[in-house]
Each structure stands twice: as C-alpha cells, then as structure tokens.
C-alpha cells in the first residue's frame, strides 16, 4: 500500500496542469425495486486539472451529489472509470487525499470548535498537541480565532460551516469536495462566505469540486463551470470562466461577469428538466 506521502510526492512530480480528477464515460444505474431501474448518470466524462476550482451546476435531481459520492468512493459506478489523484476513489479516500464539506456542518455537538476541526486528525491518531496546533492554524484561516473553545450550538450557521471547512482543510486533502456548502445559509451570509472561501482558497490552493444551485456563486468562484442536465444526469456543457483573480464584489456587476452568468443560464435552460 502506498502511503499518503508517496502519493503526494507522485502528485507533485506530475507536470503542472496534471489531472487531479478524471471521469471516463461514467454511468450509474441502480435498481429501484419491482424490477425497474433508474439511470442516475450517463456518459459522464470530464477531468479537472490540479489546483483548479470547478463548480458543478444543474437542476435538482441531476446527480450532482451522486457525482461527489462516486468521487469519494461511497458509491461505485456501474460503467466507466474514475481516477482521483492517480488512483481509484476508494484508495484515494483511504490514503486521506479526499476532503468533504457537506451541506450541513456535521459538527459533533459534544466537541468544541477546535476538537471538531481536529476530529479527522484524531481519527488518524495524530498526537493531541500536534493535531490541535494544526487545527488552530485552520481555525485562524477561516476566521474563527477566539472561538476555539466554543461549542457548536453557540455558533451561528455561517460560523458552523466555517468550522466544517476548517476541518476539511486541516485534513490536508489533495481534492476537496464541497456539496452545496452554503445551501443552508441565509442569502447575506452565503454571499460573504463565498468571498471568504475565495480568500481561503487563495492561501490554501486545492483542487476543489463545488456543487451549487447558484449560477452567480459558480461564476464567482470557479475556473470552470460544469453544467449538468437531469434524467439521466449527464454533462451538458463545460464552460471555462476566464475572469482574472482576485475576484471582487464589484466585478459581479461588470459586463464580463454578467455575460458568463447569462451564458450558463442559457446552458441550463437548453436542457429543461
């Protein structure tokens, strides 16, 4: 078995622009009882270069979250193959190369913020002082300095989600999967969190796959937007977003940004569900 370090080295040895994630003609069909079958995904074929921020956008039920579950190795495709950081999803997961941020924060209510951020390291049996030092770094990175000893219920929804992002980052994954991480937040918090995420990503640049319902959010954050259509879930377009970084609030009102949003909305409308 290769260790995480080996794999990381292999990854850093890869030429820049190497593929962190690739789907080759992936299909997923499952039995839905009484002999009928549901085709959840068909012909999903795309790749994500290392250290790129890619959003996946599409109507409800198009298989966005299923795609992430396949990537994390929680589900197996019935057709095609998936590669994550040079290996299959399950061994990538076992080597600790995958980080996940869920729609809900999934913080353990009996642990304080610091312990929650260090939780995955605790499972890896990293010694307490070491894991807490690492967790502290990421608590600071997501702007929760001073809240280390707070319990989850003492935090607002946005702060809880920050803690959950810090937990994913403290695990130091190669690929970060985010499944509608701001979906449960109010509009104002959601907006601020998007910019904070940009800021965090700038300092700790990972390959990110970001599932969202929001066109604006996708354009703002991404290097590339993958638009999916439903029944069966498949990729309809892949659109690179060539807006310079760092991205700012005012950019959102510029012609270029609005144009990207319009095009993606049209992509979505071209495949009504």
């Amino acid at each position, binding site marked *: 078995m290769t260790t995480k370090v080996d794999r990381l080295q292999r990854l850093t040895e890869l030429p820049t622009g190497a593929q962190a994630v690739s789907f080759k003609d992936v299909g997923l069909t499952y039995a839905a009882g009484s002999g009928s079958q549901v085709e959840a995904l068909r012909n999903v074929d795309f790749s994500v270069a290392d250290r790129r921020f890619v959003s996946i956008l599409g109507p409800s039920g198009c298989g966005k979250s299923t795609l992430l579950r396949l990537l*994390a190795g*929680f589900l197996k495709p019935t057709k095609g193959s998936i590669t994550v950081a040079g290996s299959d999803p399950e061994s990538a*997961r*076992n080597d*600790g190369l*995958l*980080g*996940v941020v*869920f729609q*809900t924060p*999934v913080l*353990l*209510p*009996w642990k304080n913020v610091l312990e929650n951020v260090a*939780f*995955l390291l*605790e*499972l*890896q049996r990293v010694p307490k002082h070491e894991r807490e030092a690492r967790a502290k770094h990421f608590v600071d990175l997501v702007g929760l300095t001073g809240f280390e000893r707070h319990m989850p*219920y003492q935090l607002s929804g946005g702060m809880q989600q920050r803690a959950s992002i810090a937990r994913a980052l403290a*695990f130091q994954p190669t690929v970060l999967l985010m499944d509608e991480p701001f979906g449960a937040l109010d509009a104002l918090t959601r907006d601020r969190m998007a910019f904070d995420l940009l800021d965090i990503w700038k300092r700790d640049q990972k390959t990110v796959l970001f599932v969202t319902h929001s066109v604006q959010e996708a354009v703002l954050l991404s290097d590339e937007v993958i638009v999916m259509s439903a029944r069966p879930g498949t990729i309809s377009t892949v659109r690179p977003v060539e807006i310079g970084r760092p991205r700012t609030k005012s950019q959102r009102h510029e012609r270029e940004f609005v144009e990207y949003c319009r095009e993606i909305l049209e992509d979505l409308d071209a495949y009504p569900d």
Partner: protein
Amino acid sequence: MKMPRGLSALAMPIFSVVILLIIWQAYVWYMGLSPFILPGPLRIAKSADSFGYLALLGNAWTTIYEILIGFAVGNFLATIIAYAIVQSPLAERLIYPFLVLSQTVPKLAVAPLLVIWFGTGITPKIIIIILMCFFPTAINVVQGLRSTDPNAADLVRLVTASPRAQFIKVQFPSAIPYFFAGLKISVTSAVIGAIVGEWVGAESGLGYLILYGGQTMRTDLMFVAIAATVALGLCLYGAVALAEKLLSWKSAEIEARAS
C-alpha cells in the same frame, strides 16, 4: 433580593413545599381531624421519632439495596439489548415483541407469581425492579444510537472503514444524553418497582412498612414510610441528574423533548 443562581433555583421549590406543609398542618388543626384519618406533618415527624430513626433506616436500607441491584442489572441489560437491536435487524425482530410484552404485563399481577417461585426474599423484588426500569433506558438508548447524522458516518469513513471507530467516535457519544434521559425515568420506576415487590411479601423495607402501617391502623406510620420513599426517590433522581451533569454533554434536542 440577590442570591447565587444554584441557591435561588433550590429556594423556590423548598419555599413551595414549606407552604404546602403549613397549609396541610393548618387544615388538620382547623378541621380537628383524627390522626387516624389524616395526620399532620408535625404528628408524622413525631411518629418517625417514636418509631426510631434507626429502625426506619434499616427498612430504608432493604429497599435501597433492592433498588441498587435491580437498577444496575436492569440498565446493564437494557444497554446490551439496545445495542443488539441497533446492530442487527434480526435481533430487533426477535427482541422487540418481548420488550413491549414486558411493559404490558401488569407488574402488580406478576408479583405474587414471583413470590410463589422465588419466595419472599430479595429475588422477586429485584426481578420486578428490573422489569420496571429497563424499558425506558432500552428505548432511549436505541433512539440515541440511531440518532447519528449519516453524514457523520461518511466523515469517519474518510479516514477509516472500521465500524469500531464509527461506534466509539460517533455512535456511542451521540447516545449518551439519550442514555441519561432514559436513566432518569428508569430510576423513578425502580422505586415504584421496589414498593410493589415488597407489598406482595416482605419482612422489611419501606413498602413493607407502608403495608404494615395500614394493617395495624397506624396511618401516621404509613405517612412516615411514604415520606421516606419520596425522599429516597428524590435522592436517587438527584444522583442520576448529578451523574448526567458530570458525564454527559447537553443535547438541545433532548432538552426540548423533556420540557
């Protein structure tokens, strides 16, 4: 008036109990009731004194002893049963009917049977206490072990596939507040179980004392034993609440359900 928080929280219930005792005593005096019908609190205190605190304590000890054993065994069984139910659907289908059955069987009706089988010693009392007190714990622990967020399970799977890690790091701690919620109901049931067990046949104990007081027309003695039982129940409940405070984390959901 300013008081420390814990003190003022305690002062209110004590105040209301004192008021109740005063009204009770005043009612007995005003109506000129015979102590045989309803003794006042003062008369009860005097009876306790003349009965002898040591004798009272001796009877209380019998009951405490039964409760401690029955409560420990009952909750130990409850936890194991709950774990089995959650781990295996087969175990759930096999055990659940008996769980419900054990609750629908009237304990007061079963008690004489147990005396026929096990005599008037401590065994039938312990069995009744177990029957009374394992159910609330078992049901709560099952719910607690099932209360874990499925996403939290995925989170653990990011690091390890071991079901042991799942259990130790997520499932078990999630169930702790539920365990204590069950334990609080269980401990009061255990007291009732002990009294019911002693009513059917016993040589000592608070339940025996209540029965003895009734048979010898000593209403005041009945009240002494009832007061001692209430005090015992409060102490045991307090002990569980204290253990909860020391060992458990607070679950907002359970707090909401309890209130």
